[in-house]
């Protein structure tokens, strides 16, 4: 059971840190016409997540990692670092692509390669294919989210991440891992700050910082499937929700009034997330009922 202290240390204080760091960029975002201060979001989210991670796991991971959840810390930190430098130095596109590719592949390897010695021992080919596939999905999710975030300013991307993060965290919590759920919840909590900032500052953009949310979230989703009891259909539904952000770019939605545009996009985006959470909830209740009837 989580108590007030857990929520305060895992979420509230890191969110306040995130908010404090993001307010530094308040003025530039208000004045600027082009992309500015894109280093701030990955830095703020990265630091807040590191704090949450430490509070949730009560440890700072040491190399070599014992337990894959510790590798999530490395993945989130490396992504935050790359995104911060990218936002600060405006790295050339070819270098960004290379870095994203290396980080996506590295993340998949770091988090899932321990299974090659454990559950995948007899299935090394299948395991290797899984790692490659996960790396590809992370890369696609990262680059597509970044691309859309540079086109869509305001609160839309942060709203998408809050929706996706909350759905992921809830589904993970109902699928046998409170720890992964709390880590997903921590990322979601930081995005609420970006969401509020986006509502107040229409020019605010996650832009080059989108990866700092998408990469750990995608990793957590796959961990839910491979390390805990996330149902394959629920994994698929939540993965389908990743590219659905692009719906907002569709002509028949983009032409509508603002409120209708948001409503339609939210319904389309929220549908697979809602179904995944509902399925996880029903499966949870079913197991409990079956057990009680068997008593």
């Amino acid at each position: 059971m989580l108590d007030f202290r857990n929520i305060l240390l895992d979420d509230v204080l890191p969110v306040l840190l995130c908010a404090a760091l993001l307010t530094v960029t308040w003025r530039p975002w208000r004045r600027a016409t082009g992309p500015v201060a894109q280093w701030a979001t990955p830095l703020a989210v990265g630091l807040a997540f590191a704090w949450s991670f430490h509070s949730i796991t009560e440890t700072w991971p040491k190399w070599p990692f014992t337990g894959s959840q510790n590798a999530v810390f490395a993945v989130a930190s490396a992504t935050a670092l790359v995104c911060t430098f990218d936002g600060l130095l405006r790295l050339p596109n070819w270098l960004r692509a290379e870095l994203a590719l290396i980080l996506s592949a590295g993340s998949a390897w770091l988090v899932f390669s321990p299974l090659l010695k454990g559950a995948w021992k007899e299935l090394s080919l299948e395991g290797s294919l899984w790692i490659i596939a996960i790396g590809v999905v992370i890369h696609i999710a990262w680059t597509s989210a970044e691309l859309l975030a540079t086109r869509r300013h305001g609160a839309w991307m942060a709203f998408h991440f809050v929706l996706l993060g909350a759905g992921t965290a809830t589904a993970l919590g109902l699928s046998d891992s409170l720890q992964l759920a709390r880590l997903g919840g921590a990322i979601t909590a930081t995005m609420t700050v970006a969401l509020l900032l986006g509502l107040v500052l229409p020019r605010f953009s996650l832009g080059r910082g989108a990866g700092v949310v998408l990469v750990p979230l995608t990793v957590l989703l796959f961990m839910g499937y491979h390390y805990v009891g996330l149902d394959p259909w629920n994994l698929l539904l939540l993965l389908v929700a990743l590219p659905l952000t692009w719906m907002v770019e569709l002509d028949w939605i983009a032409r509508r009034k603002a409120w209708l545009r948001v409503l339609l996009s939210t319904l389309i985006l929220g549908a697979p997330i809602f179904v995944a959470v509902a399925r996880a909830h029903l499966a949870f209740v079913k197991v409990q009922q079956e057990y009680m009837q068997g008593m």
Partner: protein
Amino acid sequence: MLQSIRLASVALLLACAPAFAADTYNIDPVHSSIVFRIKHLDVSYFYGRFNAPTGSVNVDADATQNSFTATVDANNVDTAQPKRDAHLKSLDFFNAKEFPTISFKSTGVKKGAKDNMLDVTGDLTMHGVTKSITIAMEQTGAAKTAMGERVGFEGIAEIKKSDFGIKGIPGVGDEVRLIIDIEAAKK
């Protein structure tokens, strides 16, 4: 001449030594239990078990020369509640997909508090971490039975799950009591 006879006798005794070596017994997974006890919400103790342990026991005439090895699959955790079992196997606790095996190998045995007691020190590997622990082990019996020659031991050890990198979830205690009951059959 007498000296030669003495030397020959010693040599003969040494040559015969393997005949008095330890007997090896295999742990019977059906009649052995590994039970754990942990505090819940700092209110009550909760019990669970690991089914089907395997391994072996070497029983020597000199009990301090005994040795013990035991292995259990982390996926065999059983608390009589399937959802909780799945949670215990998840990476919140044992992370059974990454670390499917829990093992113990004794490194030294000392006489215990009573005649039939032993303090068995050894390496417990769990959740990818190896730590030295000491088990207060009692020989509970040894007999020729209808199922062959068998020995029995019961051990109790106290460990901390955090020592093995297991975080768990809020409300579940850190200190774990292991109660190990072994029935082993002679090879």
